[in-house]
């Protein structure tokens, strides 16, 4: 099996190169047989990489400790589930996963687009194949998952305990689906640039692929945050760690792209900007993989490092130079068909949304690479920590929420006074009322006041949209519920987008509350003693020590009272792994969490001694669960907006409805 896996990787490299070459020859000469052969080659690559991936899974499951990868990442006592997830626990496996996912995307693109986008197809395929060749090259010749040890070991070193968490098992997978998926819209853009057909085809073709990878990136980010919250045991979920930033940057620019393509579709504007954005997004996706994998900046999330960094730098450099060269060559054909008529218009709201998103991405980028830049420029390593990111991104975030409320309701071209009053008077009133109520309620800090107020503003605008849409249909004699369902299903993209906005609002509320109003307390207790935090009283009952199959567990039994009423029992743990291979982690802290929609009670057992004394750090994090719930709503909205349409006629309806709304009314 192992030999088959190694051989198919090598073959996959040559086939990838062939697909790239044949596509470009076919595209240049117009000879269909080359293109057809390349398309078949794409299926060859996905087949070969599926074989290698299966071979690796097989080696992992059979505990083939003659393989370095298996010996480094698994052990005999590891459960089957985590043995499979060890596939992407290390460097070589992660690369294989990257390449494999890419080959699947490549094959899907061939299946869905070879008939529809004949002109672009060879270039699209060629571009994806070049990227694929790079990754498969690394796998075949630099960092193979099938590298053998001189002799087989008795047992492996085991999987890092921090990675033995269900979230960690799926979060990298989701992130990779996102990172890799960005390749597809990038390839469509390159297809347009290379073929010189700079119409909207590339945007129409790649739209759903972009939303798809954007969604996966978002899920990956949320799951990563949740993992950090549960597993790293410091009470927070986001630390502006380089690896977190690495996934956040392409997400930001992809979000900008998703918005600005609408302007190109509807108005024929921002064409250059869109090409530029997708190139930058692809750059960030590659850069993210590079940061995670090269160990160039220190991070709590990077679990594998090696010397593939230089290869990545060369490839990223090549991508940037080539893309921007093509971009400059085609600038002429990227002329805008329309001009901005007014600063108070939907076009300019979208433009500012884009600038702000790009600015956010750039500021995060700058903060992430600051140590490297300062070392090169001044010879000193200077870091900028979370204060930098918060200071820059909190105002940016507030502006984005404001634009999120303004964008969907303001009219195209030029907003009239009537339009502004009609659409924004209720939301603005609600916004002010919410801020006033919170101020009276005792909140005096400006950031949460603004944030909650703006969230209310957005929610009001979204509801206004839904209510108006439904009301129009009800007037025609429809049942309100039926008309709501019909309205959403006929304009999936639009209402899906609104639902995404609502999800983002929930996330923002959660982030604002949990970052502004944390209560924290630390205490050392003997058995029987209590401490009180906020409304809670925690009684420490004693320590429980026992040994399971894989670890020695010390659990502190705590009874939780809410003003004299017993509400729960909780048990934060500190564990020592039995197995030597896992000893690189001294102790593993398992926090105890009691989560409600109001707040999370988060207990960390920081220390204990032989006399039974234990030290706890207790946090009350308000509304953290809103973040996870909001993530779910975002995904729901995204799924609604990419769900396949019944027919392409719907597109015309969307355009029509927008035409009408120019007069300030929204009709469907």
């Amino acid at each position, binding site marked *: 099996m192992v030999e088959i896996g190694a051989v198919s990787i090598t073959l996959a490299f040559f086939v990838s190169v062939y697909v790239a070459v044949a596509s470009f020859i076919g595209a240049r000469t117009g000879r269909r047989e080359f293109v057809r052969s390349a398309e078949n080659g794409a299926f060859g690559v996905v087949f070969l990489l599926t074989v290698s991936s299966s071979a690796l899974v097989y080696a992992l499951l059979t505990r083939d400790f003659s393989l*370095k990868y298996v010996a*480094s*990442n698994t052990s005999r006592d590891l459960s089957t589930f985590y043995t499979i997830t060890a596939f992407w*626990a*290390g*460097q070589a496996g992660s690369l294989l996963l990257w390449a494999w996912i890419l080959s699947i995307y490549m094959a899907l693109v061939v299946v869905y687009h070879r008939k529809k986008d004949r002109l672009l197809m060879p270039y699209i395929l060629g571009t994806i194949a070049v990227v694929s060749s790079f990754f498969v090259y690394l796998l075949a010749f630099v960092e193979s998952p099938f*590298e053998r*040890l*001189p*002799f087989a*070991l008795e*047992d492996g*070193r085991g999987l*890092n*305990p*921090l990675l033995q968490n269900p979230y960690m098992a799926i979060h990298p997978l989701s992130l990779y689906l996102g990172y890799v998926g960005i390749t597809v819209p990038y390839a469509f853009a390159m297809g347009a640039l290379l073929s010189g057909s700079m119409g909207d085809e590339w945007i129409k073709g790649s739209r759903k692929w972009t939303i798809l990878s954007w969604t996966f990136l978002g899920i990956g980010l949320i799951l990563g945050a949740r993992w950090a919250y549960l597993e790293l*045991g410091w009470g927070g979920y986001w630390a502006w760690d380089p690896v977190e930033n690495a996934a956040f940057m392409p997400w930001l620019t992809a979000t900008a792209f998703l918005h600005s393509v609408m302007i190109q579709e509807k108005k024929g504007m921002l064409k250059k900007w869109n090409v530029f954005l997708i190139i930058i997004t692809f750059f960030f996706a590659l850069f993210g993989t590079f940061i995670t994998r090269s*160990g160039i900046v*220190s991070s*709590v999330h*990077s*679990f*594998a*490092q*090696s010397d593939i960094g230089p290869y990545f730098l060369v490839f990223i450099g090549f991508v940037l130079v080539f893309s921007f060269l093509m971009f400059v060559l085609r600038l002429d054909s990227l002329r805008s068909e329309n*001009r*901005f*008529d*007014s*600063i108070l218009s939907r076009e*300019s709201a979208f*433009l*500012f949304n884009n*600038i*702000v998103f790009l*600015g956010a991405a750039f*500021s995060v980028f700058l*903060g992430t690479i*600051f140590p490297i830049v300062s070392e090169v420029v001044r010879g000193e*390593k*200077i*870091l*900028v*920590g*979370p*204060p*930098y990111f918060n*200071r*820059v991104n909190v*105002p*940016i975030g507030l502006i984005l929420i404001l634009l999120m409320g303004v964008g969907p309701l303001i009219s195209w071209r030029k907003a009239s006074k009537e339009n502004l009053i009609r659409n924004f008077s209720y939301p603005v009133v609600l916004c002010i009322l919410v801020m006033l109520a919170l101020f009276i309620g005792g909140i005096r800090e400006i950031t949460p006041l603004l944030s909650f107020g703006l969230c209310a503003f957005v929610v009001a605008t979204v509801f206004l949209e839904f209510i108006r849409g439904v009301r129009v249909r009800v007037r025609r004699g429809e049942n309100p519920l039926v008309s709501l369902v019909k309205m959403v299903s006929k304009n999936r993209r639009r209402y899906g987008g609104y639902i995404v906005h609502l999800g983002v609002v929930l996330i923002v509320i959660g982030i604002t509350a949990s970052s502004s109003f944390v209560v924290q307390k*630390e205490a050392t207790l003997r058995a029987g003693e209590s401490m009180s935090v906020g409304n809670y009283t925690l009684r420490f009952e004693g320590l429980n020590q026992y040994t399971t199959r894989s670890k020695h567990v010390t659990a502190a039994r705590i009874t939780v009272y809410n003003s004299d009423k017993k509400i729960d029992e909780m048990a934060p743990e500190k564990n020592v792994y039995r197995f030597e291979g896992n000893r*690189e*982690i*001294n102790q593993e*802290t398992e926090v105890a969490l009691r989560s409600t929609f109001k707040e999370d009670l988060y207990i*960390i057992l*920081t*220390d204990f001694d032989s006399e039974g004394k234990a030290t706890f*750090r207790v946090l009350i994090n308000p509304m953290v669960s809103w973040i996870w719930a909001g993530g779910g709503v975002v995904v729901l909205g995204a799924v609604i907006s990419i769900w396949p349409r019944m027919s392409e006629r719907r597109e015309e309806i969307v355009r029509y409805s927008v035409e009408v709304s120019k007069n300030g009314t929204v009709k469907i």
Partner: protein
Amino acid sequence: MKNRKIAIAIGIVLLVFSYLVYGGVKEAKVYYLTVTELKERMPSVYREKVRVSGKVVPGSIKKEEDGGLRFRISDGNETIEVRYKGVVPDIFRDGVEAIVEGKYSPENVFFANVLLAKCPTKYESADELLKNKKENT
């Protein structure tokens, strides 16, 4: 020209951005030093917030009465004494690469308010993997 208004607005946005970034960097910058570099900058470094990395000297980790931690870190050349109170990362132990952030006091003690530990890289050479095994069995 209508586009001029847009251009001015974009200009303002960019200025605000630059201000935010500039202010943020100024406020949040932290020098990242090795233990030797810290010692070289000795008098001037006392009041500055710095981040220092080094290996935890084996056997130097001591718990204090108040639950705080005392240990030494070294870059192979110079060594400093560190005091820290707070959440200790799971992978913190003898010999690990630790990163501390805080201030160095004139009594030659580093008061840290942040303690990070770097994951030892999984990708050791095959030789080391084999050697490890032999010691354990």
